[in-house]
């Protein structure tokens, strides 16, 4: 078995990163000009990496499948970004953020990486503010914070419900500045089809120009995959329609190990599915759990409307089960609790697959506070309601509007109906401390890698990780590799490796186009999604996973014989794009099930029904499963498991409790 070397620097936890930065090899400015870096994806990780590397002097090429780098799905992140600034004087520190993240990840992440993340978290806020990101502020002009799940301090910085948008636009601005200066070459409406590996090192990519259908070869001394997560393997998720695993999966097939693929985050507060037509799911930010109370009726199949159910007949099940954290328990726990109630027959709404998220109490509380502020004594109930709604509107207005737009119901009057939905994937390409995959010169940043969130990600940590990787980690760690590449001249893309890679891509496209079957790509995608959701979703078991593996194999076979792709390959063809992505999901889905089957424990987002405590909590097995499962591709349906042992030297590993 290959020994995975995470290349974690020596020294005490708090010193590792500082020491590393002072001792890592550097590339002198003259040499940087001759070194080319290919970056795939333009979200928080990709845009921030591209801008930062270009600022350092590297020649950068950025690829995105959207029409502009600003559209990457980081833009949809709502709630906020964590940073251990301790501006609120409530006891926050780098260590506490580190600790919360490790614990929130259910002790399945790498200490050194997480500590580095916590260390640079403050720099991210500084950098973003300097770029002009308009974070929410207090009247004194200083930054405002709020709480997120899984923490007891206020360390989340935010810009209304559009934090991801503002952060991405900040990174995008920095990227466009470099584009304008000629340091970055931008390729929009381009999708990476394969990594080109020359003599064991990543040396470029094959990309398809989505408008003309042409295949292009691009050289790079290093290749950075910043391509996000693979939640769309479930068909329905909060991901964008185009979010896909293709780049990571193609890298996997070229030798990059895929780590912890079964760790999927199901977000507890999403708008429930309304029918078969549903194409995607919409998140209602976790920040709503600061003020919203989650409940179901105490009576099974209660036919009454929410407003008709009296207080003492409501079951605020999160507050009941987890009094210490209440409605702010981490996502995996909140999601499972909702599923448990609905499965037990207490669900609400027409589908009975939803729970209430209620703001009535918050409206009254804010209304009374507002009346005091305005010196209104003996305010009437209506006045309190009115003032309370104003405050709630200021905090969550855009989310409430979005809810109303989608459901046609007014959440100021009726409680929201919510249900968990696939949101984020903690798994991804295995990377070492340098963020390099098992293929030299091939890096993975942001959600595309597995590194920081263990088995469950805490809210407001994805933005932090994406930007940490791009702004503050890769500019240093890439030097460790590129310092030894200064003697490698830019390669011609006419070499055999490039020609062969392009040929293989061309053949796959021709194969897809030639099937001319009877069923649309969506048909297969929906079927795959259903298998994954039922057998590899919020709860998994051995029997179901084995069934799913067989079902996926059969579905994949059917796909390759019966998919129908209209149009031509040498034109804008969204169906062909989708087909390529779904073909990869059909392979990834199998690996996810295999990983879930292999992990005989419950941890974070991975809940195996066979492994739970008496009161239904996840039961970890630290003795046998405190490792990162890194899978090596060995051929169709063949994956070899490599284990990276996780050592906890600074944290006492314990049963995770939010009670």
């Amino acid at each position, binding site marked *: 078995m290959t020994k995975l070397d995470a290349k974690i620097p020596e020294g005490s936890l708090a010193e590792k990163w500082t020491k590393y930065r002072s001792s890592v090899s550097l590339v002198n400015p003259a040499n940087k000009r001759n070194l080319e870096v290919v970056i795939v994806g333009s979200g928080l990780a990709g845009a921030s990496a591209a801008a930062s590397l270009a600022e350092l002097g590297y020649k950068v090429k950025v690829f995105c499948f959207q029409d502009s780098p600003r559209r990457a799905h980081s833009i949809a992140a709502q709630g906020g970004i964590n940073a251990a600034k301790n501006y609120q004087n409530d006891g926050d520190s780098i260590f506490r953020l580190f600790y919360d993240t490790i614990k929130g990840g259910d002790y399945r992440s790498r200490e050194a990486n997480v500590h580095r993340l916590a260390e640079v978290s403050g720099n991210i806020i500084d950098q973003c503010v300097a770029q002009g990101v308009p974070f929410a502020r207090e009247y004194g002009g200083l930054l405002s914070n709020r709480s997120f799940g899984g923490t007891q301090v206020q360390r989340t910085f935010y810009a209304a419900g559009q934090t991801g948008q503002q952060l991405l636009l900040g990174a995008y601005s920095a990227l466009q500045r470099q584009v304008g200066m000629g340091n970055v070459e931008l390729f929009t409406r381009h999708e990476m089809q394969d990594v080109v590996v020359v003599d064991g090192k990543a040396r470029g990519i094959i990309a398809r120009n989505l408008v003309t259908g042409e295949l292009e070869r691009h050289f790079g001394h290093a290749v950075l995959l910043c391509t996000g997560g693979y939640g769309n393997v479930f068909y329905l998720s*909060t991901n964008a329609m185009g979010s896909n695993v293709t780049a990571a999966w193609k890298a996997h097939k070229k030798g990059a190990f895929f780590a912890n693929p079964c760790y999927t985050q199901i977000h507890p507060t999403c708008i429930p599915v309304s029918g078969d037509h549903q194409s995607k799911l919409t998140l209602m930010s976790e920040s709503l759990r600061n003020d919203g109370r989650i409940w179901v009726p105490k009576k099974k199949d209660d036919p009454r409307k929410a407003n008709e159910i009296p207080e003492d007949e409501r079951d605020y099940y999160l507050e009941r089960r987890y009094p210490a954290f209440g409605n702010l328990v981490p996502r995996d726990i909140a999601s499972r609790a909702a599923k448990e109630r609905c499965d037990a027959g207490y669900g609400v709404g027409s589908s009975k697959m939803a729970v209430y998220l209620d703001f009535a109490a918050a409206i009254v509380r804010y209304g009374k506070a507002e009346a005091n502020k305005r010196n209104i004594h003996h305010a009437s109930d209506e006045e309190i309601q009115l003032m309370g709604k104003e405050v709630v509107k200021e905090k969550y207005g855009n989310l409430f509007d979005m809810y109303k737009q989608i459901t046609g119901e007014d959440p100021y009057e009726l409680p929201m109906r919510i249900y968990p939905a696939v949101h984020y994937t903690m798994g991804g390409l295995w990377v070492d401390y340098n963020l390099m995959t098992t293929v030299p010169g091939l890096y993975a940043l942001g959600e595309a890698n597995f590194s920081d969130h263990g088995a469950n990600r805490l809210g407001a940590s994805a933005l932090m990780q994406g930007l940490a990787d791009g702004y503050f980690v890769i500019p240093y760690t890439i030097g460790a590799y590129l310092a030894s590449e200064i003697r490698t001249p830019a390669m011609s893309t006419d070499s055999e490796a490039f020609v062969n890679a392009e040929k293989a891509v061309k053949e796959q496209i021709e194969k897809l186009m030639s099937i001319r079957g009877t069923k649309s790509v969506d048909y297969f995608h929906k079927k795959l999604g259903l298998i994954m959701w039922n057998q590899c979703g919020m709860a998994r078991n051995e029997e179901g996973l084995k069934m799913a593996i067989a079902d996926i194999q059969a579905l994949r076979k059917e796909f390759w014989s019966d998919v129908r792709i*209209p149009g031509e390959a040498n034109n804008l063809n969204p*169906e062909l794009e989708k087909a390529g992505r779904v073909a990869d999901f059909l392979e990834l889905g199998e690996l996810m099930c295999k990983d879930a089957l292999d992990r005989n424990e419950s941890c974070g987002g991975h809940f195996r029904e066979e492994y739970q405590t008496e009161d239904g909590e996840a039961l970890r097995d630290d003795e046998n499963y405190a490792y990162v499962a890194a899978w090596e591709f060995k051929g169709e349906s063949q994956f070899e498991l490599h284990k990276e042992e996780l050592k906890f030297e600074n944290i006492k590993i314990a049963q995770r409790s939010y009670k």
Partner: protein
Amino acid sequence: MEGNLNLTLKIWRQKNAQTAGKFETYQVSGISEDMSFLEMIDVLNNRLIEEGDDPVAFDHDCREGICGMCSMYINGRPHGPNKGVTTCQLHMRSFSDGQTITIEPWRAEAFPVIKDLVVNRSAFDRIIAAGGFISVNTGNAQDANSLPIPKDNADDAFAAAACIGCGACVAACKNASAMLFTSAKISQLALLPQGQAERAKRAEAMVAQMDEEGFGACSNTGACEAECPKGISLENIARMNREYFSSVFTSK
């Protein structure tokens, strides 16, 4: 059949930038009121694929109203009949049974059609590249709270920064002007202390790029503001005018 809306769709079809386009008429039935507008197009496209026809190409990605990719001109209005909503957040309950819906791409010299309803909006990226940033390299920043910003300024900057770059302002404007888009970025950065150093240069550079891209002038009709899914205000255009002229007349 999930619902009971039957609709006639007149959709602009155009094979590519080089070919002339024309309207095609399609009937869709059994549309549910809970569907989003794009899900209704999905229904049509699935049928077209089954029938062996080329589905309608359209831009879309996040489908939650924030990425700015969706861009349909529906019954004479960008993003359709509702205020403050992108096409992907428009739901079929806003339409009635038997209605005819005409769907066109954004039309502007600076937004050439790529295929069907898909247009090229990279002009926006170039406007940002011309000056829509603060020149601060990674690692240069001071502590975030060392620079207090009055809440009102921060809020106004945020309101301008909420632009999603969808191009509805250009599509709505009778002159295909990009002033709302350009001014939103100029405003955001002009309102913040961090943006002061490059303030004058930024306005001139971005306006020059905007003109070069082939967008029209502003007639102050207010159509852009009325159709903007994020409610970006006309005040931003006035601020851009101020920024631009004060720079032009005072710079050396």
